[in-house]
C-alpha cells in the first residue's frame, strides 16, 4: 500500500480526490487547498471532511449561537461555551457541569446501541471537564405510539439508555417521552449528563507545554463508525431508511466505567495537564482541538495507536469513532505514574505523540509525514454559513387555525369523552413502564426523580447542598411560533426547577431541527435561538453549552422544530425540597399566577 504523504501531495497536485463523497462542497475543498498551499493528503482530507461536517463545525448554526455568548456575564459561570461543557459555581467550593447532546440518527439505525453510545458520549464530555458524572436524563421523541416503526425503535432506545447508564452506575433522574407523527423515521434521542467537582479540579481541553506527551487511553481503535459523524448526523435519511450504512458502534459501558474511575484517580493525583474525549470525528477532533486550544503545536506518530483491526489505513484511524477513548496531555515526568493508574483499572494506554513548539499539527505514519496542518483551520476555523432564511409559507394559516373554532363539549357525556381522550393520550400517560428500566437509586443521593417535574440530587452529605435539573421541550409550541415557543420551553424548565425549591442558575440546550439547507427550517432555527437568548436574558441565566442536531427529517419533511432545554438549579439544603403532588388530606390548595 503506497502512502499519500505530504511530499507526494505536493508533487502530484492534480490527483483526483473524493472530497464530494466525503461530504465537502467544492468551495470547501478549494479552501483546504488554499490553506495548505497544495492539495491535502488523503489523511488530511479525512480530517478536514469530518471536522468541517455540520455536526462538528456548526457551520450553519454558529452565526446564530453567538447570541448565547453575548448574554450578560453571570457570576456563577466558571467556564462558558466553547469547552466540552460549561461549568457553574454552586457554592461551598463545588462546581457543576452539565450538557445535553443528541444521538438521533444512530438510534434510528440501531436503537439499542445508538442510544447507549449517546449516553456514553455525553458522560465522557462531563468527565473531560474533571468532574465525576453523578446523574443522567433523557429526552425521547418517537412517531405515533402505535406506528410499527415506534415498536421497532422505542424498546431498543429505552433499553439502550438504561443499559448504558445503569451499567455506569449513574442514576437517571428524569427526562421526557413524547410521540408525534413528525418523528416517524427520525426519532429524537437526547441525553443529558451532570457532573460535580471542586473548583480547583476543572480541566480544560488544551495541549500546552512543549515536550508534554499525548496519551491515548481507553478502548482500542477499530473500524467502526468511520465517518459516522459526517455521514450519519449531517445527512437526511430517504424514505427507504438510512441513505448509507456506516457501521454503528457497539457501546461498552464497562470499559467506560473503568475509564471514569481511572480518570478521576488521574485528576486526583494531578497527572493531567489537558484532556479531551474522543467523540464524533475521533482522533481528528481530539488532536486538532487540543492543539488548536493550546499554545503550540502537536506531533503524533499514528502507528502507535493501539488498534483492534490491523488493516485500518491512517485516514481510517484518524476518522474512526470507536467509543470509550480519551486523550490526555501529560508531563513527561508523570507518564509512568499515569500508565500505572491505567493499569490498575485495566485501561489500555499508549503515548502517541507530544506537544511541540511550532504551530502545526503533524502526523507521521511509520516515519512518513501524512498530515501537516495549522490545527485551528481544522478545529475552529471551519466554514461558516449565513444560510438563507424564510418564514414558513404555512405559518399564517397554522397560527390562524385557532382552537376557538373547536366545538366545546355540551353534555356530560361529551365532556367525559374529551377527558378520556386527554388522559389516555400516550404523551400524558404514566411513563413508569419506561422509567422503571432506569436505576434511580444508585450512588444513594437521588432526592427526587421520576415522576417529579425535576430531578434533585444531593452533592454533599454533610451540608446537604444539592442541585435540581429539568429537561423540557415543546415542539408543537415551537412549530407554531419558534421564538415564543422556545421562550415558553425555557420558562417550563425554569418553573420545574424552581418548583422544587431550587434557585435556577444556568441553561443547556439541544436544538433538533430539519435541514439547514431549507430556508424555512433555517428561519425556525434562528427564531428559536433568538427566543432562547432573549428568554435567558430576561431570567438572568447564562447558556453554558449545548448541541445542535440538524438534518432531522424523513424525505423532505422536517420534524417540528424541537429545542430541548435543560435548566440547572441549586438547593442549599436538599432536605427542604418540595415534591410535587398533594401529600396530605386537608391541605389548602392555592393557584398562583394569572
Amino acid at each position, binding site marked *: 500500500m503506497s502512502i499519500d504523504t505530504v511530499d507526494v501531495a505536493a508533487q502530484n497536485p492534480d490527483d483526483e480526490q473524493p472530497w464530494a463523497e466525503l461530504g465537502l462542497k467544492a468551495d470547501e475543498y478549494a479552501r483546504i487547498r488554499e490553506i495548505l498551499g497544495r492539495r491535502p493528503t488523503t489523511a488530511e482530507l479525512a480530517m478536514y471532511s469530518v471536522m468541517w461536517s455540520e455536526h462538528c463545525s456548526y457551520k450553519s448554526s454558529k452565526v446564530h449561537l453567538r447570541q448565547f455568548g453575548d448574554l450578560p456575564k453571570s457570576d456563577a459561570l466558571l467556564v462558558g461555551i466553547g469547552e466540552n461543557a460549561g461549568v457553574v459555581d454552586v457554592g461551598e467550593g463545588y462546581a457543576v457541569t452539565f450538557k445535553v447532546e443528541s444521538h438521533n440518527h444512530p438510534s434510528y439505525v440501531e436503537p439499542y446501541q445508538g442510544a447507549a453510545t449517546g449516553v456514553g458520549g455525553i458522560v465522557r464530555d462531563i468527565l473531560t471537564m474533571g468532574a465525576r458524572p453523578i446523574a443522567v436524563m433523557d429526552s425521547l421523541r418517537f412517531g405515533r405510539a402505535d406506528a410499527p416503526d415506534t415498536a421497532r425503535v422505542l424498546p431498543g432506545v429505552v433499553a439502550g439508555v438504561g443499559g448504558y447508564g445503569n451499567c455506569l452506575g449513574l442514576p437517571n433522574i428524569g427526562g421526557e417521552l413524547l410521540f408525534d407523527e413528525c418523528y416517524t423515521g427520525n426519532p429524537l434521542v437526547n441525553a443529558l449528563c451532570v457532573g460535580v467537582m471542586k473548583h480547583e479540579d476543572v480541566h480544560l481541553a488544551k495541549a500546552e507545554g512543549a515536550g508534554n506527551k499525548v496519551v491515548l487511553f481507553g478502548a482500542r481503535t477499530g473500524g467502526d463508525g468511520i465517518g459516522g459523524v459526517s455521514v450519519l448526523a449531517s445527512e437526511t435519511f430517504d424514505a427507504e431508511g438510512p441513505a448509507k450504512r456506516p457501521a454503528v458502534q457497539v457501546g461498552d459501558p464497562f470499559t467506560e466505567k473503568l475509564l471514569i474511575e481511572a480518570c478521576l484517580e488521574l485528576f486526583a493525583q494531578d497527572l493531567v495537564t489537558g484532556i479531551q474525549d474522543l467523540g464524533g470525528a475521533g482522533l481528528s477532533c481530539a488532536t486538532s482541538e487540543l492543539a488548536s486550544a493550546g499554545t503550540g503545536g502537536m506531533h503524533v506518530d499514528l502507528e502507535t495507536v493501539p488498534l483492534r483491526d490491523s488493516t485500518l489505513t491512517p485516514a481510517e484511524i484518524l476518522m474512526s469513532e470507536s467509543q470509550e477513548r480519551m486523550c490526555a496531555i501529560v508531563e513527561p515526568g508523570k507518564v509512568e505514574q499515569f500508565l500505572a493508574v491505567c493499569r490498575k*483499572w485495566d485501561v489500555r494506554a499508549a503515548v502517541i505523540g507530544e506537544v511541540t513548539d511550532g504551530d502545526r499539527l503533524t502526523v507521521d505514519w511509520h516515519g512518513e509525514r501524512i498530515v501537516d496542518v495549522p490545527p485551528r483551520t481544522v478545529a475552529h476555523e471551519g466554514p461558516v454559513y449565513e444560510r438563507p432564511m424564510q418564514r414558513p409559507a404555512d405559518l399564517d394559516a397554522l397560527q390562524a387555525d385557532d382552537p376557538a373554532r373547536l366545538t366545546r363539549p355540551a353534555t356530560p357525556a361529551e365532556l367525559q369523552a374529551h377527558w378520556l381522550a386527554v388522559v389516555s393520550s400516550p404523551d400524558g400517560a404514566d411513563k413508569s413502564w419506561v*422509567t*422503571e*428500566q432506569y436505576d*434511580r*437509586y*444508585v*450512588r*444513594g443521593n*437521588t432526592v427526587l426523580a421520576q415522576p417529579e417535574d425535576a430531578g434533585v440530587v444531593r452533592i454533599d452529605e454533610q451540608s446537604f447542598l444539592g442541585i435540581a435539573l429539568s429537561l423540557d421541550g415543546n415542539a408543537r409550541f415551537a412549530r407554531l411560533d419558534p421564538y415564543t415557543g422556545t421562550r415558553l420551553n425555557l420558562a417550563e424548565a425554569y418553573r420545574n426547577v424552581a418548583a422544587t425549591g431550587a434557585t435556577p442558575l444556568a441553561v443547556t440546550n439541544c436544538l433538533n431541527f430539519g435541514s439547514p439547507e431549507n430556508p424555512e427550517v433555517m428561519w425556525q432555527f434562528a427564531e428559536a435561538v433568538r427566543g432562547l437568548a432573549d428568554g435567558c436574558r430576561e431570567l438572568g441565566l447564562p447558556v453554558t453549552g449545548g448541541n445542535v442536531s440538524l438534518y432531522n427529517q424523513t424525505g423532505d419533511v422536517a420534524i417540528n422544530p424541537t429545542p430541548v432545554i435543560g435548566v440547572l438549579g441549586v438547593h442549599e439544603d436538599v432536605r427542604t425540597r418540595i415534591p410535587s403532588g398533594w401529600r396530605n388530606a386537608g391541605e389548602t390548595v392555592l393557584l398562583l399566577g394569572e
Partner: protein
Amino acid sequence: MRIGVITFPGSLDDVDAARAVRLAGGEPVALWHGDHDLKDVDAVVLPGGFSYGDYLRAGAIAARSPLMQDVVAAAHGGLPVLGICNGFQVLCEAGLLPGALTRNSHLHFRNRDQLLRVERADTAWTGDYADGQEILIPVKNGEGRYVAADADLDRLEGENRVVFRYVGGNPNGSSRDIAGVTSENGRVVGLMPHPEHAVEDLTGPSTDGLGFFTSVLKAVVNA
C-alpha cells in the same frame, strides 16, 4: 466493628454499601478484588453493580477474582458475607449459595420499591427483624430471576434456607417468589433487592434496609 465492602471492576453500589455500614454504626473498609487481603474485617459485603459488565453471566467473572478465593475460605470458617444484587450473583457463581440468577422473565431491567417478607430472622444479617416482618426496599436488576431445579428448590425450602420472598408482586419471575437465600450455617446471605438504598428517609423509600447492617454488628459481637 470493621465491615469490608469489595469493589470489583464494575461495582456500582459500593459507596452506598459503605454509607449504610457507617449509618448503622460500623466502620466500612474498602476491599479490592485483585488483592488477597481481607484486612481483618469482621464481615464482608459484596455490593451491587455490573462487575465486568455482566457480559458473560452476571457475577461469573468476578466470582473468579483473587479476593473471592479468600472470601470463600473465610465464609466456610463462619465469616458473615452479604451479597446484594450483583453480589448475590457472584456468591451463586462462586458456589457459596445455591441456584442461579437469570434474565428477568419480562426481559427488562426493573427498578421499583418492593415489599419483602423476612422468612428467617435468625441469620447473621437479619437478626434485627422479626420472622414474617414485611420490609420495603428498592429492587433494580435485569438478571434477577432466581432459578434452580425443582428438586433443589424443594430441598432449599425443606432446609428453611429461603430468607426473603417478594410480596405484592414478583418483579422478575423468580421461582417461588424467592428474593434471597442463605447458606446452611446462616452466615452467608444473598438477595436481589438493595437494603443499602433504604437507609435514609431523604433518598430511599424507607429506612427498612438499615436492619441488615445493624444485625451483622450484633451477630459479630455475639459470635
